[in-house]
């Protein structure tokens, strides 16, 4: 009889995750699985609601990455109201959205680095978990902890200025945005008292990349050999191949760098991407149709994005990108721990983008919304901090949503996360059917590299238990429904 060992919960990952390690008859690790149990039944909840409510409604999916959902839904609604995709909006509409997105990317990547990744870097993966955590960082590396808090605050203030609130704002509306940036708001971000100004943010983001590179040079063995396995990589890229987190065409490359999805329009993503259901998981497994279910799985997120794009359109991040690419001789990077490196380069890029947008006159324009001929279906894609996020809606004649399909980043990374977990479980397995401290650690570190948002991995399957939670404006819970 095959044996099964269960490890739970995975700490420092939002929501609930459950890992099972499956041993074969000879007491070797055969497979290990990450079970994601969180579910919010959103796709059903949204049925019947007016389409313009979607960008606000969907934020309730997730307390961790609401802005990503807000913007992806708004992009889908742009299509529905005939404003086209991405560049169809007014310059003010598009750039305010971009500012919101880069602001959230900055705060999210910062959070991930300092809370989830830096403890491992500063104390080592094998350190006592009692100090290998964010509190440990705060106690031993005060300066870093202060930076983390300030960088997050800066990102959140950008979100507030663009969306109206730090969480669950209303800024993005179908066809555009409901506000532009005032002089005071812009100047505060550009020239605010130290450290809360964009130049300081850029220098701190640069310092974080340097911190990682320093750690890497001293720990090559671990960083370069931990959970390395060939994968396909998928993301949006700008039409000219640049890294673009807000809008672009879909591109995928295989583990050798060959393009397997060649810059396609994402409005018909479903012709390119399928979703497989497996009996042991509530979360679906997306795959590239051209390759098939077995080998068509792919990775999304920072690692994937730096594998698909040709360059980064801001100077400091581009410089880092060149070094990063040189490390793998320009080939795709398949080392899970390099996800942290990629994330920090993106964070630097986000800070540079914020500065560029703040200095752009369009951000203060008055022309906020465009609309054209309404259609009954729209798809919105976005590179969320954790990877490609798909929102797809259909509406009826009466403007009600009749269909919603979402593929969240964490779902896109379902297979690679399972592979990573299996990989490390195998590598640290001692031959004895027991869960060692080392196994616990490694499994955690592997999952954390992907920064899964377990809180919004929501794909609805009919027979799932349904729970919907409601919060008031101050974040207090006001309602929970189960079905």
């Amino acid at each position, binding site marked *: 009889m095959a044996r099964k060992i269960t490890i739970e919960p995975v700490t420092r990952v939002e929501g609930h995750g459950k890992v099972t390690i499956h041993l074969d008859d000879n007491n070797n690790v055969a497979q290990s699985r990450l079970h994601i149990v969180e579910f919010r039944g959103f796709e059903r909840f949204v049925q019947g609601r007016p389409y313009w409510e979607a960008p606000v409604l969907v934020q309730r999916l997730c307390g961790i990455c609401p802005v990503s959902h807000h913007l992806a839904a708004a992009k889908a609604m742009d299509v529905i109201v005939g404003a086209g995709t991405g560049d169809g909006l007014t310059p003010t509409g598009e750039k305010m959205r971009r500012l919101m997105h880069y602001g959230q990317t900055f705060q999210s990547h910062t959070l991930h680095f300092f809370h989830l990744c830096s403890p491992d870097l500063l104390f080592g993966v094998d350190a006592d978990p009692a100090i290998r955590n964010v509190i440990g960082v705060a106690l031993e590396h005060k300066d870093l902890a202060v930076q983390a808090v300030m960088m997050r605050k800066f990102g959140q203030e950008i979100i507030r200025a663009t*969306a109206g609130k730090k969480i669950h704002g*209303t800024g993005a509306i179908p066809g555009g945005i*409901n506000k532009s940036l005032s002089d005071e708001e812009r100047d505060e971000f550009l020239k605010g008292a130290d450290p809360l100004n964009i130049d300081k943010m850029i220098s701190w983001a640069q310092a974080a990349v340097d911190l990682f590179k320093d750690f890497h040079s001293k720990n090559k063995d671990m960083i370069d050999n931990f959970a390395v396995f060939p994968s396909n990589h998928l993301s949006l890229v700008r039409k000219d191949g640049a890294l673009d987190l807000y809008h672009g065409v879909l591109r995928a490359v295989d583990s050798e760098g060959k393009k397997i999805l060649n810059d396609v329009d994402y409005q018909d993503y479903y012709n390119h991407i399928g979703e497989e259901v497996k009996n042991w998981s509530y979360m679906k497994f997306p795959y590239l149709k051209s390759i098939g279910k077995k080998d068509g799985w792919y990775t999304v997120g920072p690692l994937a994005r730096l594998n698909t794009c040709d360059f980064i359109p801001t100077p400091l991040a581009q410089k880092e990108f060149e070094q990063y690419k040189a490390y793998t001789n320009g080939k795709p990077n398949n080392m899970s721990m390099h996800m942290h490196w990629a994330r920090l380069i993106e964070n630097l890029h986000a800070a540079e983008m914020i500065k560029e947008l703040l200095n752009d006159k369009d951000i203060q324009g008055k022309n906020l919304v465009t609309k054209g001929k309404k259609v009954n279906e729209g798809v919105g894609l976005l590179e969320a901090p954790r990877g490609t996020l798909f929102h797809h809606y259909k509406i009826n004649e*009466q403007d009600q949503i009749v269909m919603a399909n979402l593929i969240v980043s964490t779902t896109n990374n379902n297979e690679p996360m399972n592979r990573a977990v299996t990989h490390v479980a195998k590598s640290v397995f001692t031959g004895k059917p027991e869960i060692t401290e080392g196994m616990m650690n490694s499994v955690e570190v592997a999952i954390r590299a992907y920064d899964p948002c377990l809180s919004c991995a929501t794909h609805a399957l009919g027979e799932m238990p349904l729970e919907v939670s409601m919060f008031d404006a101050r974040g207090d819970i006001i309602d929970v429904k189960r079905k």
Partner: protein
Amino acid sequence: MSKITFEIDGKECTGKAGQTIVEAARDNGIYIPVLCWYEGMKPAGICRICTVRVGGRFMAACTTPVAEGMIVENEIPELEDMRKAIVEMLFVEGNHMCPTCEKSGNCELQALGYRYGLMAPRFPYLFPKRKMDATYTKIMIDTNRCVQCRRCVRGIVTKDGKHIFSMTNRSGHSTIVADPQLESKMSDELAKKAMDQCPVGAILKKEVGFAVPIGKRKYDVTPIGSEIQK
């Protein structure tokens, strides 16, 4: 016009003959909460949130005329708690989900909830089964949010005086409906007026949600009533 002298919570007030207590109080810088009452609309005395005590008796301030020498009790704990209870009842009787409602920040029910410091209602939620009525051309009626104040019934009329909205069914099942013919001919201005006059997010003008940014909405900065209170 003859002047009337009366008193609210010990404050000397003056009013005009024919004015209701609510109207006269506003002229004197005193806020009496209202929900079904709307400036310029015939008062109906439905919601009872304006209840005051006159000579020991409870009365709807929106329908009771002021009289010479009247002693009105308004902001006293007993009444304030009863008003809060009414707000709580309205919350539990419908399906009100402020975080996703486009009326948030402009909603009078929500604003009253904040004014009365409503946390968890003392009554159990009823979770009634209600529907979103999207069959119209210019508007949607989300009956989940309707507090049955009948402002729309009283206040929204066509140029030739026809009422567009009406109430169907009885008691707990009563619902607001619009005449489909008249509704489809509503001007944009009238549809907007219907949405603005509805105290909650039950009447939605199509395709304009969330146009006003957070911070610029009616009750974002100051609580409901502060525009009247001196």
